[in-house]
């Protein structure tokens, strides 16, 4: 059978700040047959997006294709003129970007953007294009297919937008569609809908696809073949089932292993169970305070929970359910509108400004995005040195040696101390972020999605680190995540939130049997490594309509 895509010995170079040229794709070859879906998987920075883009004959600014050929239906995208390439884009190859929210022009109605391909390439009259778009909306099981196009991008949800961007890619009847991590930013419950929609449309049209992801379980549901990448090189290629069950390459095995993190292990024996943090009837939100003393947007309502010394509490729930708001209220960043916070037996003031320095020190918060949590203008040494100086008055040698210790604790080499955050990898940044919290010598650390921005291998390593530190320093964590397996791996208790309220509190032991219907839906939506999981999954339609994304 004639291959639709033939990539041979592809090399891509990038020019760095100093003008040095580095090879980021080092001789990759791959084929895609018509109607076949191939997944590119690998850790962050392995070159997945870069390869996917070369299939469009495009490289991001600063990069260029330095060798090899990319043939799509016989035409070499590398040597074509810019005009000819533009002619192919949208009609033969189409692209579904990683973040649909960013890929839609905020100033244009959705329908305009969806049918734009037909206008650019003069494929069909405007009215016909509209009709076709509506059909696609229907096929992708979007609600109100007739009218949804008239909205602006900010007026639809993330999952819908992701499907709309697929419609945008499909309208030109391409022979190849490239999906770049289309579900990474979505909730597990939404992810299922989107995956299903994609799969059925591709099948129906016999369209070839490239599916980029770092999530093996997702890939398993949709791909025929998997290409494992690392550092711009292909590690292993194989049929989906083969890769999942008989992975040859050690890196692939590592990926597989990281997917199922080790469970909590045996509990550290705590002599007497002492309550560290007790929250009663906490409400918090945004916007002006209303007549009833509550804010306009009530993001968290009437939540009570306790954290015991040396034990961990997990908080899960879909995006926007109020997890971060709760964390911010506990930390005093966003003073709670009502409710009490008891910490180490004393009641805490609502706002950071009123809390004593010791209370601030004993409760630290670690944020999801290490990029924004670390000041890019400061060296690692300064970042770690400040809390030491601020809380413990350490100076000079003493501080230096303590910084070394901290770096050591989070398994970072000492040589890193003079670097700036942007000179570190994502995992390294998150470790520094964590080391800064440790520098305060806290009793409780609130971790808000600390692993969500990391790829599975790195995330698993961070989880291991957290566990290790807990053993050594007898810390407590509040661990916020939407990823169930991660919470499961580290927490003693789990709180499930929905719509700003706590709906259930469970222990890992009873994880498999949640009581609350929302918890049930949530837990059953987590993809399994089994390729047939999606096809056989049956969700209670009633649950989906009540709790799924509108």
């Amino acid at each position, binding site marked *: 059978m004639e291959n639709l895509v033939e990539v041979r010995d592809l090399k891509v170079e990038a020019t760095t700040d100093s003008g040095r040229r580095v090879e980021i794709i080092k001789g990759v070859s791959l084929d895609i047959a018509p109607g076949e879906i191939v997944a590119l998987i690998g850790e962050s920075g392995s070159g997945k997006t870069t390869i996917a883009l070369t299939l469009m004959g495009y490289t991001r600014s600063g990069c260029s294709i330095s060798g090899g050929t990319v043939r799509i239906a016989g035409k070499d995208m590398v040597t074509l003129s810019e005009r000819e390439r533009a002619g192919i884009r949208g009609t033969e190859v189409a692209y579904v*970007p990683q973040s649909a929210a960013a890929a839609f022009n905020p100033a244009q109605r959705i329908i305009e953007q969806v049918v734009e391909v037909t206008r650019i390439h003069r494929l069909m009259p405007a009215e016909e294009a509209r009709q076709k778009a509506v059909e696609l909306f229907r096929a992708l099981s979007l609600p109100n297919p007739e009218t949804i196009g008239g909205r602006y991008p900010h007026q639809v949800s993330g999952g819908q937008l992701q499907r709309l961007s697929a419609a945008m890619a499909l309208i030109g009847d391409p022979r190849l569609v490239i999906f770049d991590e289309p579900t990474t930013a979505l909730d597990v419950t939404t992810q299922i809908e989107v995956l299903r929609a994609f799969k059925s449309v591709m099948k129906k049209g016999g369209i070839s696809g490239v599916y980029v992801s770092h999530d093996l379980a997702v890939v398993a549901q949709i791909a025929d073949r998997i290409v494992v990448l690392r550092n711009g090189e292909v590690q292993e290629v194989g049929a989906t089932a083969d890769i999942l069950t008989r992975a040859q390459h050690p890196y692939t095995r590592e990926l597989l292993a990281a997917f199922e993190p080790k469970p909590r292990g045996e509990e550290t024996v705590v002599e007497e169970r002492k309550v560290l943090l007790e929250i009663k009837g906490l409400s918090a939100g945004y916007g002006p305070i209303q007549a009833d003393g509550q804010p306009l947007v009530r993001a968290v309502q009437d939540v009570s929970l306790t954290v015991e010394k040396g034990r961990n509490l997990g908080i899960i729930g879909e995006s926007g359910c109020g997890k971060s708001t709760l964390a911010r209220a506990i930390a005093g960043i966003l003073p709670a509108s009502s409710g009490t916070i008891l910490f180490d037996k004393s009641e805490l003031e609502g706002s950071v400004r009123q809390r004593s320095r010791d209370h601030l020190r004993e409760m630290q918060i670690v944020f999801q995005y290490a990029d924004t949590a670390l000041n890019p203008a400061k060296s690692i040494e300064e970042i770690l040195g400040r809390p030491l100086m601020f809380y413990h008055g350490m100076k000079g040698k003493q501080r230096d040696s303590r910084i070394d210790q901290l770096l050591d604790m989070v398994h970072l080499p000492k040589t890193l101390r003079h670097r700036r955050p942007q000179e570190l990898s994502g995992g390294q940044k998150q470790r520094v972020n964590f080391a800064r919290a440790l520098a305060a010598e806290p009793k409780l650390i609130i971790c808000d999605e600390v692993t969500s921005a990391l790829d599975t291998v790195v995330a698993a390593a961070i989880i291991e680190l957290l566990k290790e530190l807990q053993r050594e320093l007898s810390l407590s964590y509040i661990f916020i995540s939407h990823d169930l397996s991660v919470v499961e791996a580290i927490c003693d208790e789990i709180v499930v939130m929905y719509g700003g309220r706590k709906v259930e509190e469970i222990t890992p032991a009873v994880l498999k049997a949640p009581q609350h219907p929302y918890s049930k839906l949530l837990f059953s939506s987590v993809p399994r490594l089994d390729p047939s999981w999606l096809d056989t999954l049956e969700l209670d339609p009633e649950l989906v309509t009540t709790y799924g994304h509108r």
Partner: protein
Amino acid sequence: MSTYVLNLIAVRLLIAALTLLIVSFAVFFATAMLPGDTATILLGQAATPEAVAGLRTAMHLDDPAYLRFLRWLGGFLSGDLGTSYVNNVAVADLIGGRFINTMRLAGITTLFSVPLALTLGITAAMFRGSLYDRAVTILTIGVISIPEFMVATSAVLVFSVYLKWLPALSFANDVTSVWQMLQVYAMPVISLTFVVAAQMIRMTRAAVIDTINTPYVETALLKGASRPRMVLRHALPNAVGPIVNAVALSLSYLVGGVIIVETIFNYPGIAKLMVDGVATRDLPLIQSCAMIFCIGYLSLITLADIIAILANPRLR
């Protein structure tokens, strides 16, 4: 339009009004600080002390400052700009014709410079890094660097004295035909365009480039869109906010900043009037002119804000 947007706009207008109040306060007291006793200036050297005292009382100059401020502000709000100290004419009459002249010059300059600047800025961004882009950049830097009186004087020398194409003076009031208007306004407008366009070009280019670097423009590229389409249909609508702000800031210069151009072309505008006012210590005149400039500035800025709000569908 949603009530939310109406609210936003109302807030903008309220802020502008508040700022104007602060301005009026500052203007009143800054000008009141000018040295020279108004009554003495008015009556001249020969004035007797009694005459001066009499005039002071008649003009309420002896009242406490806040009372004078309130009286002045009240008058201003009710459209009474006061009476010129110098020649006893209502300030409104003095300003009237000149205000129209200023607005006309500003208007024509706007009509000319804004499309020019936007075109240059947008095309430079579109062909970023090309020879054309570089040429535009060098041109704008060059233009930004020359004092405006040099530009204006050189223009007069070349076009009036040597080539005799255009009149050296611009008497707005003599204009009777379109051809004459072109002649009269050509040089002031060109000189002012030199001053205001460079900044607009720079800002437009920067704003468009900023939006060109967004993923949705990249998406357009991956749909096979041409460069002009990417820029005009995708980048530009999203750069409207910063661009109108830059344009408003530049244009605010045309209300009060054109004193040099008015002087060199002898154009009877309001900036020169205010300079006259300062020279003769004609406080009502100075205050009214200053207020007009501030109102001009604030309306432009507020208008820009409102346009930016309306252009943003997220707020609509």
